């Protein structure tokens, strides 16, 4: 078989696995949140049914061509991010399309979906969407700073822009993980991660009490289904990225699931306990402690 086709097939397999994992972990996380609230919460498979339901809707209305494309953009952002991240270290087939400068592309893809969404949301004509998008963009910009600085610090540390190589450099024991070798960058990255996951206190984008529910206000039926798929894939892609950057990657799916789950739980852990920041507060917050830590991380890894 042509290696490229094989590569594509394996990439599709990755997407499939990640999608299912994403949906299940989404259900489980909501269940955990519900447990803290002392109730049972949804069945863990509820996200599946929701997606089927949304695709089963019979009517849909359109607000124009960008409105159609926006969910696709968003999903592309998620899948794109995933496809350029090496998923399983040491397994050629699950390297996806990782290449030597993939770290930069990945940072770009973080933004890509949001931008696509911005276009679509603007076209949907709902003011809440517009406000949500502007909030989303400002917040992404804000947390992108510590995120980039953290990544930069790691790039300097490992002297590479290739995720696979960063992972490779962390092999050989827990203490080799960047989390321990570069704690400053790790803190900056993990703080940025909170906003990247869009949970409290940084969930001002959706904020049901203020602008129900932000950018996807007008999306429904199949469109919403696409967004939901993305909502399953995108966080997992980010989780895999953070796992690769900080926690030594994974050599098999089991390890991946365990590690990503715990990273996920970090955002849940914070999210359950805190209310949300206003957008100006979260921007200011990211321009504060995380930024300084990020700068410090770069400085430290460059000069020490």
């Amino acid at each position, binding site marked *: 078989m042509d290696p490229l086709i094989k590569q594509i097939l394996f990439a599709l397999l990755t997407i499939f696995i990640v999608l299912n994992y994403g949906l299940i972990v989404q259900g489980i996380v909501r269940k955990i949140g519900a447990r803290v609230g002392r109730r049972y919460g949804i069945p863990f498979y509820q996200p599946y049914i929701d997606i089927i339901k949304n695709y089963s809707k019979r009517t849909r209305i359109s607000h124009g061509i960008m409105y159609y494309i926006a969910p696709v953009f968003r999903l592309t952002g998620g899948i794109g991010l995933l496809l350029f991240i090496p998923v399983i270290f040491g397994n050629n087939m699950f390297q996806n399309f990782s290449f030597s400068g993939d770290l930069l592309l990945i940072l770009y893809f973080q933004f890509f979906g949001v931008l696509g969404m911005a276009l679509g949301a603007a076209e949907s004509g709902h003011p809440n969407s517009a406000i949500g998008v502007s909030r989303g963009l400002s917040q992404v910009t804000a947390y992108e700073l510590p995120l980039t600085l953290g990544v930069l610090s790691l790039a300097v540390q490992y002297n590479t822009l290739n995720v696979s190589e960063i992972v490779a450099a962390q092999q050989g024991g827990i203490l080799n993980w960047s989390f321990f070798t570069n704690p400053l960058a790790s803190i900056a990255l993990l703080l940025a991660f909170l906003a990247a996951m869009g949970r409290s206190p940084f969930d001002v984008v959706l904020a049901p009490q203020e602008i129900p529910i932000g950018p996807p206000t007008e999306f429904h039926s199949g469109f919403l289904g696409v967004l939901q798929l993305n909502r399953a894939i995108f966080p997992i892609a980010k989780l895999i990225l953070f796992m690769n950057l900080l926690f030594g990657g994974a050599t098999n799916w089991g390890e991946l699931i365990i590690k990503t789950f715990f990273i996920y739980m970090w955002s849940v852990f914070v999210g*359950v*306990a805190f*209310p949300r920041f206003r957008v*100006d507060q979260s921007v200011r917050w990211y321009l504060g402690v995380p930024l300084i830590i990020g700068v410090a991380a770069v400085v430290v890894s460059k000069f020490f």
Partner: protein
Amino acid sequence: MSKLFNIKEDRSLFPEKNEQGKIDIDLSSHKYLKLWHGPQHPGITGNMSLEITLLGDEVMDCETHVGYLHRGFEKLMERRKYIQCFPIVCRVAVPEPDFNEYCFASAMEELAGIEIPESAKWLRTLVLEMARLASYLMWIGGQAGAFGQGIIGQWTNYLRDSMLDRFEELTGGRVYHMYIIPGGVRGLLPSGFKQRMEENLKFIEQMMKDVERVMFNNAVFKKRSVDMGIIEKDWIYKFGITGPNARAAGVPLDVRKDNPYLVYPQLDFEAVTATHSDIYNRADVRRRDLLMSVDLIRQIMAKMPQKGEIRAETPNVLHWKVPAGETYSKAECTRGEYGYYMVSDGSEYPRRINVRGPSYTHAVSLLEKMIINCNLADIAGLMVSLHTYPPEIER
């Protein structure tokens, strides 16, 4: 450290206010965004709406729209006999119907010259305090929820529900109790009630400690609520502000103390106050008021007579003619002074009943003022912190 980045805002782009303190808004300038909050909006307390004009994230102008819940109670009561008004008054304010029942019944009793039996007084006080407790519990969840902290609402709504179970046991109704009937109350405590109530109160106290830790000792919550939405002290009388909103500003307005009714003179409590009425202060006043309610319920259950008549002798309710006259009966509800102004012309039907809901002033004139220059994100929090219930505005 983030103070470093607290750059002073450049407000040169913001428009000047005119003499009325408002801004001349020209929507066609493309500077402004008009936004409707509600009625279908999760951040709005109940079914009402705010017409907001935004400049950036900041509210430039706001108009409250009410009337989505208007049922014409005051008109309906004019064509119902007095007893027939009794089941409908509780519908005026859904989360705490008992204050309506009490105010209606006491106004009517005053006009008719009826003295209710002692144990009925105690039971009424008990029910009013239970209602206060239940209402505050739901409110606290709402306040946290308005700032995006759902977990508090999960806990406190359960606590409220446990109070509703007690209500159900005592009054026969879950939400609409229809318990304080003109002339008295509709039932004695069922057996084992006190014990179950005590269990509830213990659990409430225990959970409220958690709420304090998670909500009130919370950096983000403080950041959102401290110095936000301040009610100035000199607004209190200017806007007719009552209840916790006023008490948080240091003005101890509490009808329970000022014009004591029922058995409040025999209970030991103080009006809860704070210093400057921002969102956090108001939340804190309500939390302490809630705990005081717990204490009051305990006091009532310890002191109340175990047996006794529950309803005074009244004329046949089917043709009860209340002597002509007018009166105003008020009670302290969770939001402030709740009052019924009743005019009787001596017939079987009330001539006019006017309901004073504290939200009337809080949600319209006060909110419209406070919301100016407020951030879009804070509207929900601000509105909840005024504790408004739309149904009592429009009735």
